[in-house]
């Protein structure tokens, strides 16, 4: 676990989690994994017992905490003259703790920070949600067969994007501070110090678990191969089964494309920012009717190349954290790992 403060690690008994969260609810909005109708999702809890940390991963990534699927940017009453009484809806989320996310999803938020949070293009709406957010991740003692976080530069105990990281140890969690904010948070909540033996045990277990997940492909090999493969005929057959839905993009922790729509709703004219997907026919269709990405082939290629080539060029990191959601949720089992393997191997052949 890179960058954690071993000395200040504390323990949180599994049986004490509900009570701990209950205590937080007075001052914090707590977003945690909740099991509902057989589906795990991240939502704001109203009682500590709602959180269910015994989960593999949520159906949808928790990116909605910083990038809601629908977010009103501006509104004005229908009754006002045009251009008057416009209200800007800067979010005021208060203090929010995102509790028990998997390290891949925490990395996902770390990735979104690069897109929305930095430089001259920093996004106010994103920033005001992000600034008040504390990310407490939960290391993966049992990664799934669909997980490939180590392939994309992360790992089951990656600390990127987390303020705190928890690791399972018997009937307790050992909690490590990663950031200054995390350390401050810990110091305020009077949890007892973890036993040195427990700390060493989880650190070495974490190392073993990382070592067990060998990267499936080399990212730089993949990128090198992709950069010469934009027009490869192989895209035709690789993507043929794609039905063009938006599942992969909507469950993804790093996909962040959005559209801005004006709607009349509930007595107001509202300008909403909504998630959009590069897999949808309307995403690139131009006013003339021309569409530079007319079929599933170009659209799938766009998503894949965006993740493993364009993002690397722009942000120095791939736009994929290897959570495996698109692998499990794709209605036709179009497995992104197979495409990665194909292009990695292809380079050797040419």
């Amino acid at each position, binding site marked *: 676990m890179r960058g954690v403060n071993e000395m200040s690690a504390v323990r949180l008994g599994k049986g004490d989690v509900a009570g701990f969260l209950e205590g937080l609810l007075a001052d914090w909005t707590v977003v945690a994994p909740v099991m509902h109708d057989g589906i795990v999702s991240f939502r704001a809890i109203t009682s500590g017992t709602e959180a269910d940390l015994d989960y593999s991963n949520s159906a949808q990534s928790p990116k909605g905490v910083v990038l809601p699927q629908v977010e*009103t940017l501006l509104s004005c009453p*229908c009754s006002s003259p045009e251009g008057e009484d416009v209200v800007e809806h800067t979010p005021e989320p208060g203090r929010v703790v995102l509790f028990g996310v998997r390290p891949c999803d925490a990395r996902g938020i770390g990735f979104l920070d690069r897109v929305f949070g930095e430089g001259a293009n920093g996004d106010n709406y994103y920033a005001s949600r992000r600034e008040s957010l504390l990310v407490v991740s939960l290391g993966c003692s049992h990664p799934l067969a669909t997980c490939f976080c180590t392939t994309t530069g992360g790992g089951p105990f990656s600390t990127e994007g987390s303020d705190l990281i928890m690791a399972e140890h018997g009937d307790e969690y050992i909690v490590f501070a990663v950031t200054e904010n995390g350390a401050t948070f810990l110091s305020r909540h009077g949890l007892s110090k973890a036993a040195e033996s427990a700390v060493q045990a989880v650190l070495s277990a974490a190392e073993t678990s990382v070592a067990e997940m060998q990267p499936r492909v080399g990212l730089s090999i993949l990128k090198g191969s992709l950069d010469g493969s934009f027009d490869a005929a192989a895209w035709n057959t690789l993507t043929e089964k794609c039905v063009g839905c938006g599942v992969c993009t909507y469950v993804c922790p790093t996909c962040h494309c959005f559209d801005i729509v004006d709607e009349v709703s509930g*007595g*107001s004219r509202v300008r909403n920012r909504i998630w959009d997907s590069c897999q949808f026919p309307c995403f690139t269709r131009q006013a003339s009717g021309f569409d530079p990405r007319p079929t599933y082939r170009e659209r799938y290629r766009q998503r894949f190349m965006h993740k493993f080539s364009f993002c690397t060029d722009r942000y120095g990191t791939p736009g994929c954290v290897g959570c495996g959601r698109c692998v499990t949720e794709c209605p036709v089992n179009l497995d992104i790992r197979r495409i990665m393997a194909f292009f990695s191997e292809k380079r050797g052949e040419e």
Partner: protein
Amino acid sequence: MNAQAPGGMENRSVEWEPRIIAFLCNWCSYAGADLAGVGRLQYPSNVRIIRVPCSGRISPFFILSAFQKGADGVIVSGCHPGDCHYISGNYSARRKFALLKGLLDHIGIEEGRLHFTWISASEGGRFADVMGSVTETVRALGPVRQMVGPGVRT
């Protein structure tokens, strides 16, 4: 339906009046409404008429959109069976309406919100009667709560 129409609940005062959208076919029902007017028959001012060429022109979209934008009730009226200006528009429409009505009832939308009827060009009296009874039915249900658009999202 812009300035005052799609109101949130907060806009509804104690003197709430139902807003009812009436889709009327051009040839029979709209002429029936005209006849009611010419004959100076009273019918509730809650009814907002939208003229369509034929009841066969009605898409379920129109009806769902009306509810989403805040209509408390919707009534669709066409020519009596056999009298359609386009021969069979109302017959085709009737099949669609049966399915829509059945589906909305099934998911628990209040039954008195949506009405279908036939009114001919000569039935000014019937037009006024039906509009009156529909208005009273909707009034008894109170302001629409289901299917209304979402409003501002933060």
